[in-house]
């Protein structure tokens, strides 16, 4: 396997931003060492590697840190351009479209995600965040339909690409949120293309073992995150 003991990821197992990086490493067939961080007690390595944002994921390549998940993904795609599938399209216009939707996901889905779990002070605020998530997912349903006339399995076409991994990283949390709100965020009745996409994505080799699938564990972890947050 390529990588040669040269790659390390500092992460948190539920982080959508970490999960997407690990999926990309898997897609590229790259071996890496994974180190779980305690967000309540960040390691010296993390703080030294990402002094500006102090967040995960951090990719260490030959000891040199690369920070910010979408920056990391593009770095991996460029360094290992010869291995495995391309994570970003080759054509400049298609790259721009992929980057647009990846940015959209983190902007709209990402902010709704923090709103649904971490920033809401009451059920009303959570419901407002859920509504924003619904709207974003409706738009993404449309985008997926346009991508390939609804004919292809992934946003990237036949294979998983940037937009897939960026959205896919949230799936573990979505399942937990579904339990909290009592219905599915990605509902086959409302967003059939996304629902089918979710099944395919979760089943993909690169995603298995990385996208959390134990809702109880995720919900228990949520409590530790909320406790850390309130102790800041």
């Amino acid at each position, binding site marked *: 396997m390529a990588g040669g003991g040269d790659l390390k990821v500092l992460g948190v197992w539920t982080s959508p931003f970490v999960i997407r990086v690990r999926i990309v490493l898997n897609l590229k067939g790259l071996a890496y060492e994974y180190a779980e961080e305690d967000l309540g007690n960040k390691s010296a390595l993390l703080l030294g590697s990402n002094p*500006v*944002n102090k967040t995960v994921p951090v990719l260490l*390549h030959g000891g*040199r840190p*690369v*920070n*910010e998940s*979408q*920056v*990391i993904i*593009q*770095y991996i795609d*460029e*360094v290992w351009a010869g291995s495995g599938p391309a994570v970003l399209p080759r054509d*400049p*216009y298609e*790259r*721009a479209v992929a*980057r*647009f939707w990846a*940015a*959209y996901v983190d902007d709209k889905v990402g902010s709704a995600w923090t709103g649904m779990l971490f920033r809401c002070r009451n059920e009303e605020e959570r419901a407002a965040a859920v509504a924003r998530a619904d709207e974003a997912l409706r*738009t993404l349903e449309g985008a997926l339909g346009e991508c390939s006339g609804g004919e292809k399995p992934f946003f990237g076409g036949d294979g998983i690409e940037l937009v897939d991994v960026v959205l896919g990283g949230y799936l573990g949390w979505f399942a937990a949120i579904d339990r909290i709100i009592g219905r599915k965020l990605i509902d086959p009745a409302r967003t059939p293309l996304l629902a089918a996409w979710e099944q395919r994505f979760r089943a993909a080799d690169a995603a298995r073992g990385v996208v959390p699938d134990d809702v109880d564990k995720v919900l228990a972890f949520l409590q530790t995150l909320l406790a850390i947050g309130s102790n800041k």
Partner: protein
Amino acid sequence: MAGEKKGLQLLDFWVSPFGQRCRIALAEKGLPYEYLEQDLRNKSELLRRSNPVHKKIPVLLHGGRPVCESLIIVQYIDEAFPAEPGLLPADPYARAQARFWADYVDKKLYDCGTRLLKLKGEPQQQARAEMLEILRTLDGALGDGKFFGGEAFGFADVALAPFTAWFLTYERHGEFSVEKECPRLVAWAKRCGERESVAKNLPPPEKVYEFVAGMKKRFGIE
């Protein structure tokens, strides 16, 4: 066809630092384009059609196909027109550094600036403290380099340069001096301003200040 502009059009708004990034990138690459000033209070059919998701400027149209989001546009310009100068360096690690800093500017600067300009009292003091931290971080990242990437003007510089026209406005609202706090950043801003691509595409800082004053009046913020 005389004056053929390679089919490039930019939907933009004069004071937008995001639009200016695109103008600077196009100028760096020596690419002619048609500039189409947009009325953001009465958005055109073209803008709505070109950016249906956000309905925001800037939008680059290339042969009629829209590219949205300023840093995505800048990367598109670099990739679709690969002739020198390259806005991103060749080395992937250096590219990652450039993208990191461009992303940092994108995530932090404008929102903090908006709060600094709009808010009063304690929230404004909070925004002021954050702004100083952001500027000091950028000053530190620049270090003694000529530009963020080193010798060559590049992606991170393009991302930040338009905000130099906002320094005066931030200073007056926050009651601080960027030069005093971040002298290296101010020296960098001067070097950027010596480039034709930047000099021709940024408004005078006083004009930005007037614009913000006008907006505050319009929205009843005192």
